[in-house]
């Protein structure tokens, strides 16, 4: 898809937010995903053009970070954390259940383009392990059955809420928020709950602290 003049304008706006325009590349790539559903070649060329860098340099960045997709993703992008904590607490089973339900594997979209699935790395949400994300919104303490239910409801067009509050929109809608975190939606929902703070509370109650630099733990 070619990048519209309006998108180019928004890219320039992002570039103007930084002392070094090049720093805007990460949000700009999210913007490309919000309009094209993936990082397209046109999107890469547009970023290069706006920032005055080469398409190869943009390609380098867009292939380094896994959140940038060089292949089409589904309308809803589903991630399942399979790192140590989530994996042990059921993440692997969640992934398998979803893979079977959707008929796709890692980084593959379904034939109807509705969903795509990805094994993701630790989301720093281990408190609520195992976690799954839908369009990067959290579904905490998920089970295989709950995960499949989320998919079923999305497929039926029902509204699904993240365990932390915000309504699930679409991959492209979330990408737009990632490009413009000041769109008023980024802060929706809870980011910290009681369970997440339990460890900190315990440490404080027991006067625990990190060892000083250079000292053995």
């Amino acid at each position: 898809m070619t990048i519209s003049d309006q998108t180019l304008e928004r890219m320039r706006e992002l570039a103007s937010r930084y002392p070094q325009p090049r720093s805007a590349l990460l949000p700009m790539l999210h913007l490309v995903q919000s309009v094209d559903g993936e990082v397209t070649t046109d999107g890469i060329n547009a970023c290069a053009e706006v920032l005055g860098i080469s398409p190869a340099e943009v390609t380098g960045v867009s292939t380094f970070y896994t959140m940038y997709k060089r292949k089409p993703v589904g309308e809803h992008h589903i991630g399942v954390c399979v790192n140590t904590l989530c994996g042990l607490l059921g993440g692997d089973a969640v992934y398998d259940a979803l893979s079977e339900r959707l008929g796709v594997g890692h980084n593959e979209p379904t034939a109807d383009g509705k969903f795509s699935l990805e094994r993701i790395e630790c989301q720093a949400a281990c408190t609520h392990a195992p976690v799954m994300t839908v369009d990067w919104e959290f579904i905490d303490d998920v089970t295989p059955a709950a995960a499949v239910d989320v998919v079923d409801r999305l497929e039926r067009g029902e509204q699904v809420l993240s365990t932390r509050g915000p309504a699930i929109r679409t991959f492209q809608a979330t990408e737009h928020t990632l490009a413009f975190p000041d769109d008023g939606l980024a802060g929706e929902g809870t980011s910290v709950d009681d369970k997440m703070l339990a460890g900190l509370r315990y440490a404080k109650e027991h006067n625990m602290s990190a060892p000083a630099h250079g000292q053995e733990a």
Partner: protein
Amino acid sequence: MTENTTTEIVPTVSVTIDGVALQVPKGTLAIRAAEMIGVEIPRFCDHPLLEPVAACRACLIEVEGMPKPQPACAQVVGEGMTIRTQQSSEVAKDAQEGVMEFLLINHPLDCPVCDKGGECPLQNQAMSAGRGESRFEGEKRTFDKPINVSAQILLDRERCVSCARCTRFADQIAGDPMIELLERGAQQQVGTASDEPFDSYFSGNTVQICPVGALTSAAYRFRSRPFDLVSVPTTCEHCASGCSLRTDYRRGVVTRRLAWDSPEVNEEWNCDKGRFAFAYLAEGRITTPLVREDGELRPASWPEAIDVAARGLAAAGSRTGVLTGGRLTQEDAYGYAKFARAVLGTDSIDFRARATSPEETQFLRAAVAGAPIGVTYTALEQAPFVLLVGFEPEDESPIVFLRLRKARTRVVSVGAVATRGLDKMGGELLAALPGQEAAALRDLPADIRAALEQPGAVILAGERIAASAGAPSAVSTLAASTGAALAWVPRRAGERGALDAGALAGLLPGGRPLIDAQARAQVAAIWGIDTAALPGLPGLSGDDLLTSASRVGLSALLVAGVDPVDLPDPALALRAVDTAAFVVALDHHHSAVTERADVVLPVALVTEKSGTFLDWEGRPRPFGQVFKDALTMSDATVLGMIASAIGTSAGAWDVNGIRRELTALGPWQGARAVVPGVQPQAAAGAGFRLASWRELLDAGVLQEGEPFLAATARPSAAIVSAAAAARLGSPATVTVTGPAGSVTLPLEVGAVLDDVVFVPMHSSECSIYRDLGARIGTAVDVTAGGAA
């Protein structure tokens, strides 16, 4: 420019490396400091001409007081630092061996089928700094192999050690960051954007600095093993940048050419033309002398051909014109200069196979011929300001381009196109219509004039000032009035040497005026002839020479390697050759001239003789003979044979003898011709003005036979401004029509002045002189779409 003689005091620091105390300049990297005491730390990503990146970790050393081993290639030596390398530290040795083991985990170890095998830093350092045995039993990472990062450059990704030398070269040196490290982790790989290949003029350097066999050239891949090659240091024959090259050959055939180290000139780089354009050496040679009989050329023996040539030329004598082209060595050009004056008694000689003007002739006589080295590459690097006139460095002298880029000198180009090359030098355009540079120089903005008045400022005039009335005069006046140094940068490798050898009407060797009695006496004495035997008045040159020959004003032509298509009026040149009663051609390949000649004498290629090119600085770049047992003779040797058949010997004709004569003569110290004083001329005619120059990679005959190189050339296009394109209705193609014809080319929008169209001078798609009959600055028609 005189060398900077003030000694700068460089602060030093004391460091101890492996127990050896030494002082090094402040800012020295540990890896360089270790080299000073003869310790070689293993390295892959380190390259003295690239910014440190510490990407490969092969160079780990122990630095006292630091918790972990440090990369020596990025560690600046500090005062009082104690460093231990693998020579004295188990920690460093262990770290280096560990990194080497990691690097080899995913390395295919396919040395027996790898081009780098035998000259591979990984192979060598795995032996010197690695463990003999691998403990890795897993499956190695593999990739489809190879991928084309360009038509010429191939990449075998599994061999890559991610050192980022190639990507840093492309970005930092060439200014062409079209290759990058893509992906991450074990998948990290060099690659391009999906729709933009690595078509850089300097791409071949990445193959040379890749420390493994990951990057190869299509031209050399799988051709030979390095230990089967014989290497000879040579000088590039393709342009006046003067690169030192290394020519590698096997069984009488050149297999590859590399950039060779020459810190004052090309540093360690060269361009892809110099590196890859050598297939012509092996193809389509003229193998025997040819003599015309009953209208047909037939093979002849050397004695017969020399005899026929001698009789024909002797009969024409002073009514002979001599065209030497711009590619000869200085010694061969000197041979023609001497042969014309001492043997034939003619002064009608010209080395310029390109657009010329009488004004340029006078400029060269007055300001360039025989002048000592003035502006150097180093001077460019130190200059506060450089003004370019009629000169596009990236296309016309690539090492000048690299040097100006490196120096980040302020550059202003007087011209009609703000090229990507100019952009890569951080340069600005001072608008001048093609052919109208003189007017722009006359009305120079005050800030540019002030910039030129700074000590060390330089004006670089390209060969295209000859195609711009008043420009040679204007650059001379400007240099005189601002105190800026002026250098002339010709395009072809042999032009400066030929000029200094006297291969231009009115000039004897060393810049001596033909009409100066003392100069004549000096030259006559060296040549062992009577001063009176030298022609008395300057002969014909440039267009006049050809016009005269085409009108039976001259009765013979002696031509060396001139392709009429390079001349602004190819038809006139062919008419001249057809009209001349007698034509002798010395060449190694057939051309439109040899086809029409009465006698064709085959001569040696650059690989078959020794000689000297003078680069644009005027610096001699001598080179030795690659193929020592070649039976071919240089132009000068053949001319010497004709001379003795005519009965005049006139001194030496062999390369050493000629060098002795040139040294004995030395440069002219007496009065010189005055610089020309031609006024700018207003443009004639209406329509688009034609801007054009020779792109580095084009349809030049010396690039023949190398399709991979040709595929990386810039696609031919007619380039106009956005406004002009809109006026034309932004068609995909346009037809450019000149006095003699039209060409249809893709339309491209660029930073070109309005009412100017850029068309490459001599690409595979179009040649402006031949196809359009137009010269630089000619008014041409540009219409949308194909020819009617």
